[in-house]
């Protein structure tokens, strides 16, 4: 009986794993900045949201993503709502790709991420710099997008493995 309860708990926890990772990463502003490599940063949340909303849309709720965006804005110190808008646009793109794609293709997804990042970073820069008049480094955005794009395949493999574990547990 105890082992049955334990296995139910594990199944439930496994399905919440992407959500837990999302919130841990926004609370911690997870981007390996502490490695102190100059001009190095990437946006882990973009990769996470892009992968899970594209491949397993039921793992991350849109409302949770909206709340994660608010948390990210408060932690980073930019006006509230900007990250939420960016994450949701990312979700919209993934939903659109899902609707028009019959068989998923990694390379197409990868380049869609690049296109989407260019779009949402442009929106973010317009809002922060031109509307709120907060000075930001455009180069940081370019570098950040570049590294996020380069890191996607690595996290794709990790998330694929994680996804298999989650769905195996669910189907057990």
């Amino acid at each position, binding site marked *: 009986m105890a082992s049955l309860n334990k296995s139910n708990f594990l199944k439930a926890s496994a399905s919440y794993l992407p959500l837990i990772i999302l919130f841990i990463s926004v*609370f911690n502003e997870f981007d390996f*900045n502490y490695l102190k490599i100059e001009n190095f940063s990437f946006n882990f949340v973009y990769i996470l949201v892009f992968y899970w909303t594209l491949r397993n849309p*039921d793992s991350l709720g849109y409302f949770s993503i909206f709340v994660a965006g608010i948390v990210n804005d408060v932690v980073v110190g930019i*006006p509230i709502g900007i990250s939420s808008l960016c994450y949701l646009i990312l979700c*919209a793109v993934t939903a659109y790709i899902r609707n028009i794609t019959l068989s998923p293709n990694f390379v197409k997804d990868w380049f869609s991420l690049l296109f989407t990042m260019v779009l949402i970073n442009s929106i973010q820069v317009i809002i922060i710099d031109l509307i709120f008049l907060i000075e930001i*480094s455009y180069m940081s955005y370019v570098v950040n997008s570049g590294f996020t794009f380069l890191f996607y395949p690595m996290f794709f493999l990790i998330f694929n493995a994680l996804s298999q574990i989650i769905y195996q547990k669910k189907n057990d």
Partner: protein
Amino acid sequence: MATGRDDFVIAFRSAFLKKKDKQKFSLLSLIILSIIVIILSNINFKPIQFVKIGINEIIYRSSYIASKPENYLQELTLKIKNHINLFENYKDIKLELENLKQEKVTNNFLKSENEKLRNLINENINSDEILAKVLIDRESPFLKSIILNKGTKDNVKMGMAIIDGVYLVGQIIEVNYTNSRALLLSDLNSKIPSVLAPQNIQAVLSGTGKNYGIIEHTKDDIEEDLKDQDVIIYTSGLGGLFKPGIPIGKISKYTNNKVEFFSDFTQLDYVKITSFTFGDTK
């Protein structure tokens, strides 16, 4: 052609409006909500400000708890590194201590002379200090700031200086009830009126978004003056927020006019939130 456009419209409409089984909200409604939140956060309306402060309070505290394991790991790495470099550090520090002892003798004399001269012109600078703990020091690539555990209930106000030991590290830009946010000198939006010593040149120290600052608003031929010598940057006190003479950083002859801050912003643990009052009364 028409079919292609119809497909696009259907896919687009489905992406924005259709709710999946597990989604309680449609994307469009949440995107509209985000835009409303962005507009509201820009409006200086008291109830909205209270809600904003409430959200900040909850998230700062949660972030502090959530980042504890990561902070612990970072501290552990630093401790191990320090332990490994112990002997090398000891030799460097011993040499530095000798130099400092010699400088201290001269400085004591200059300090007392400075006080005497200030008394002669009846100029006094008083300061109030509040010791604060750094709750969050996330090094975002876009904005450089820290969250402190003191807010309006401890009389923290906008614009107060943040001092680490004797070095200036930033200023308060947002105050909540129990915590506040300080903008670090390294942020792109940070501009501090400063003076370059020993040349005594007035300038503005700007953050770059990286771990160094740059000197702005000086004469064009300034670079020639600074060539081949070490320059110390102090606050000039011109803005009226900071007292003059708080050390900020230095430009070494090898650093290409980049200002290296004296304080390591990634290692801030406790800082002093300081306000200065200027007057001729004692």
